[in-house]
């Protein structure tokens, strides 16, 4: 309850901000006018400058430092370079030909600003920044599939609705409840059974400090003591991702216990017979009080022991009858084993057994205490430890909370942090640009942790819109930001660029969304099936199931014997037959449990209802294409059209002047192309809409997609499998196939020049040079139409395709 209230309180605090932002959206005001408020006089707020004063302020600080170093900034980039860079860095993919054309055709004076604002509030941004967060949060396939799906959706939704960073962190750190209600619980599921490591990760992620070394001893390179570590761990130690306590299960467990007791008592024949274990008998007898009890019942010690043994035997006999009941309960609750997170205030962290510092004894309990900044009082803590902790962490006054996020986002935009490494802050840490860092922290607080607004400022700077730096980075030396660092596209950006060329409206294509929603919904219904029953109904269900499950047992045993006999006779075919029968019988038991136990699964909503319930809408391609991108603020799903584009029409175009044999050959090739396109795109969608992380061996993983085992584990270093993928892998077909988005356009384009221009626009977002035009035309003279596929292949295998200039 406290938890909910706090969230509500925080939401109220945000109310102004929300109104504020929707005003921007409604009036289409340039961000500059709004952001001008930061540290600037009132008069400047009205100026409506072409870029925000915040951006100007950053530029002047960066330029001053460059000057101080005797350096000058890099040249400003042209529109073509800008549109490609902005789409990649913000939207996570290169622009389509149409998008680049639309940008160039736009005559609005602040069109760069407008593009930045559109992109940061687009679905493309959600896709791109999902990977940024998933890599930080280690959202991996280790999580159970439905939990993973709910966590992914939660993070994407947070990005979509631009949840302020402090709220985002607050909700992750305090996440409790069932995962189908709160996807943020994935934060604790991820480190299930490892509350200490979870704390280390939290502190590293959000406070930029490495504590993990202090888990086993005082930190060897920093000031943190092992005691600091455990004091911090005490805050979140009680966050437990065990299965939700089930009232019905508790009820039946206690009933079974009391039944056991009754059997025991009945066997001893003495109503107040103590129910004790064998191991406790001696202790019982040593207690003088108990000898009175023995006297009262006229029992000798050996008679007493004999009665206990008798009672135990009776219980054991009764137990074996209850076996199928227990088996049923176990199976019923199996899917709910880990379904929720709760804060267990009783679980208290203790020092390790080998604690060897003088300030405390090994194994002594540790009280929570913050590592720096404000203290948390005992009363605050008693009102909910985790909430107090999260409030302390996400407070604008926390010494490192704001520093870490501004530096992270800065690095994401410019390719290099103002502090490196950005998650190992110590008292000695110095930023390359302390004034910039301080200003960014103020800006972030002023913007109330609105990440889209903050990013918009950074992307609007001249510093961002300068040529990527071409000088060799010096190891360990500070970087002065004459422009962004030259970077390779991330694995996801490379993949998504190919996808955007192959599929229409790739940003809205979500092939897995219904499957994911179903898996979450199924868990919820299982839970409701079990907990929605009254104790009487629950007991009745168990009593119905137990004999059904129990009666299957002899049949299974019999089959097992037969299989062994068949194996001894080496009768392979009989063995196979029996094994099938055996596995069917096993499945039958499972089915019975499903049918009787999870009755609510029958009520499973259909896909459309599920989609609507998740706040999604399905839109067909035509409708989507006709909408202006600014209107699409909801989450939409597009279906790939069954035939795409119209196959017969294409073939008809090609019939003119062709002889029958040729025609048939062409048609056959057509069919092959079509089949190969369908086969290819069936596995394609933006990386955020595929299994994430992709399985080992996938294109994405070869290019360094994070496996999400460690924080920030993605890589952009070269490896041979990458080259082999581009040289000999199937992706190039997704570009050149005549049924693919770009392939189709290319196919229909006019002469050599037009086709060449189109290829260069699609692949590199720029016009070909005169020399390049002539190279291609020579190619076409030599190889005819096949030359175009060759040129596309060649450009895919250039480094200018992979690197963001």
């Amino acid at each position, binding site marked *: 309850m406290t938890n909910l209230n706090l969230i509500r309180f925080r939401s109220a605090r945000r109310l102004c901000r929300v109104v504020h932002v929707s005003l921007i959206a409604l009036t289409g005001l340039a961000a500059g006018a709004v952001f001008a408020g930061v540290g600037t006089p009132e008069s400047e707020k009205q100026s409506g400058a072409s870029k925000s004063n915040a951006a100007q302020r950053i530029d002047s600080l960066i330029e001053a430092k460059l000057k101080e170093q005797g350096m000058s900034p890099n040249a400003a980039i042209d529109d073509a370079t800008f549109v490609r860079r902005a789409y990649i860095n913000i939207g996570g993919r290169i622009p389509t030909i149409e998008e680049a054309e639309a940008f160039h055709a736009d005559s609005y004076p602040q069109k760069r600003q407008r593009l930045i604002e559109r992109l940061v509030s687009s679905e493309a941004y959600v896709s791109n920044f999902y990977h940024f967060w998933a890599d930080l949060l*280690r959202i991996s*396939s280790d999580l159970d599939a439905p939990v993973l799906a709910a966590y992914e959706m939660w993070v994407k939704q947070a990005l979509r609705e631009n949840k302020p960073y402090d709220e985002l962190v607050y909700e992750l750190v305090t996440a409790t409840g069932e995962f189908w209600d709160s996807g943020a619980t994935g934060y604790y599921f991820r*480190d299930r059974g490892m509350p200490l*490591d979870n704390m280390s*990760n939290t502190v590293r992620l959000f406070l930029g400090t490495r504590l*993990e*070394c202090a888990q086993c001893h005082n930190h*060897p*390179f920093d000031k943190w003591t092992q005691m600091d570590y455990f004091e911090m761990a005490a805050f979140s130690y009680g966050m437990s991702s065990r299965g939700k306590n089930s009232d019905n299960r508790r009820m039946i467990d206690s009933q079974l216990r009391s039944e056991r007791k009754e059997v025991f008592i009945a066997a001893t024949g003495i109503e107040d017979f103590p129910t004790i274990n064998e191991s406790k008998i001696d202790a019982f007898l040593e207690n003088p009080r108990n000898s009175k009890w023995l006297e009262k019942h006229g029992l000798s010690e050996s008679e007493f022991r004999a009665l206990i043994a008798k009672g135990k035997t009776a219980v054991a006999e009764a137990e074996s009858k209850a*076996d199928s009941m227990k088996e049923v309960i176990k199976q019923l609750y199996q899917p709910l084993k880990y379904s929720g997170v709760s804060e267990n205030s009783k679980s208290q962290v203790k020092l390790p057994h080998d604690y060897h510092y003088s300030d405390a004894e090994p194994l002594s309990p540790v009280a929570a205490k913050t590592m720096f900044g404000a203290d948390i009082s005992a009363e605050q803590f008693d009102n909910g430890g985790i909430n107090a902790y999260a409030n302390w962490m996400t407070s604008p006054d926390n010494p490192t909370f704001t520093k870490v996020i501004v530096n992270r986002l800065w690095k994401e935009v410019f390719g290099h942090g103002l502090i490196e*490494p950005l998650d*190992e802050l110590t008292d000695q840490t110095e930023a390359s640009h302390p004034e910039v860092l301080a200003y960014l922290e103020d800006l972030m607080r002023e913007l109330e942790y609105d990440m889209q607004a903050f990013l918009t400022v950074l992307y609007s700077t001249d510093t961002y819109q300068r040529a*990527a730096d*071409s*000088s*060799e*980075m010096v190891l*360990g030396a500070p970087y002065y930001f004459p422009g962004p660092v*030259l*970077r*390779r596209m991330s694995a996801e950006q490379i993949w998504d660029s190919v996808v955007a060329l192959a599929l229409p409206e790739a940003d809205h294509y979500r092939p897995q969304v219904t499957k994911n929603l179903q898996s979450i919904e199924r868990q919820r219904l299982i839970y409701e099936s079990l907990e929605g029953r009254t104790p009487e109904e629950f007991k009745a269900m168990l009593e119905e199931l137990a004999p059904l499950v129990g009666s299957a047992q002899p049949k299974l045993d019999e089959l*097992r014997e037969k*299989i*062994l006999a068949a*194996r001894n006779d080496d009768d392979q075919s009989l063995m196979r037959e029996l*094994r099938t029968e*055996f596995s069917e019988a096993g499945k039958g038991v499972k089915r019975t449990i499903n049918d009787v136990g999870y009755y609510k699964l029958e009520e499973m909503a259909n896909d459309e209802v599920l989609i609507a319930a998740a706040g999604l809408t399905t839109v067909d391609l035509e409708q989507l294409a006709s909408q202006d991108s600014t209107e699409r603020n909801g989450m939409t799903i597009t279906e790939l059209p069954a035939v795409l584009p119209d196959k017969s029409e294409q073939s008809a175009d090609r019939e003119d002047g062709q002889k029958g044999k040729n025609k048939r050959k062409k048609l056959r090739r057509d069919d092959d192309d079509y089949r190969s396109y369908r086969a290819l795109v069936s596995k394609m969608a933006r990386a955020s809409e595929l299994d994430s992380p992709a*399985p*080992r*061996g996938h294109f994405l993983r070869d290019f360094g997609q994070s*496996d999400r*085992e*460690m924080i920030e584990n993605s*890589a*952009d*270093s*070269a*490896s*041979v*499998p*990458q*080259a*082999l*993928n581009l*040289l*000999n*892998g199937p992706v190039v077909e997704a570009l050149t196939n005549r049924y693919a988005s770009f392939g189709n356009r290319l196919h229909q384009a006019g002469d050599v020049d037009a086709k060449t221009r189109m290829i260069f626009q699609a692949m590199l977002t720029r016009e070909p*040079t005169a020399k*390049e035009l002539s*190279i291609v035309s020579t190619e076409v003279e030599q190889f005819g139409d096949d030359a175009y596929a*060759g*040129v596309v292949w*060649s*450009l895919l*295998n*250039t*480094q*200018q395709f992979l*690197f963001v*200039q």
Partner: protein
Amino acid sequence: MSTAHKSDEFTRRRFMETTAKSFLGVGALGVASQTQAALGPNLGLPNRAGAAKHLIYLYMGGGMTHMDTFDPKPGHENQGQTKAINTNVDGIQISEYLPTLAKNADKLAIIRSLTSTAGAHQQGNYMMHTSYEERATIRHPGLGAWALKYKGRMNPNLPGAVFVGGDSRINGGGGFFEPEFEPLAINDPNAGLKNSKLRGVDQETFDHRLDLASKFDAEFHQRYNVKEVRAYTQMYDDAVRIMTSKDLAAFDLRQEDETVRESYGDNSFGQGCLLARRLVEHDVRAIEVSFGGWDMHNNVFIDAPEKCKILDQAVGALLNDLEKRGKLDDTVVVLTTEFGRTPRINQNAGRDHYPKAFSSVIAGGGVKGGTVWGKTDEGAENVIENPVKIPDFNATVAYALGLPLDNVIYSPSKRPFTVSHKGKPVLDLFA
């Protein structure tokens, strides 16, 4: 602590990004031990000079039942339907499901006294591969990566480590080492190296198009003559080289005689073992072949014989083949798993997880064959002689490979680690 370990993470990452080329690069590998490794405290552990060059690590995923493979207890009620058979070494019996290995027991060092406390799959698997407990703050490297770290790559055209199997994740991969220590993963041993063949074009066209690409890129290369870009040019050179290299054949099982292929068994694990042998012959340092499906909670006496049949044939063929080719002394073959299975048979005629006592095997690499080390009690429930903890087991393998057990390597977060977490090798297993 010397300041040499305090290289900041940024420096390390840049270093990785600019010089690492994940499987054919030479840069980082050659100097790795100087940049990161440093002699740690003397743990008093013995190191072995010379030693084996290769590691073939056969992993039985799911928890291999010890009683039904290498530690049978004929006559005990826990044994169930599995019988024990004699081997070619007097006094050593193993399960009837492993007849080929029984004939090759003189090559095997059977360890029957492994003991651990990690009873869940992931934790046990991780522990066995790395000697460390799984932590959410770090990934530890596996034995193969450690071997590469200390001994380097042998064939510059091929990856230093290869993983064969369909597992969704690899425990004991490169861990916190640089990316090039990550094993190259082969899902299907029959498929060869992915994307290594020309696709829909002949060599001439391929070369022509490559040439075209470099023409288109000339201006860019001039403008951005930086390490990151040059690493990609280099990577393309390497990729094209391997496509035409004779070493590519290492991945091509079709070059084997049909009889040889059959001798390993017509299944992924068998063919994976064959691939491992080919890779050893092409000087790949470390190969893991993963064989899952040992989690026999139900019907162990139905499932174990079938699993064992595949295991027996493949490992038998591998050991004989390596010996015939003079490679067995150079190669440590390890057969291991995360834990054993409960000696007491459960109500579903299966066995559950049992880390308290289980078995593994080491062969080749100078290890004394025909040996049994350690002992469990009459019901195979408790280790009663020479217990071997997981770090001890890994120290034994590392010792066979001649890796320095004492040497400390610091992770990027500056935490100290050793190859087998201070485990003590079983020296009695060496001649």
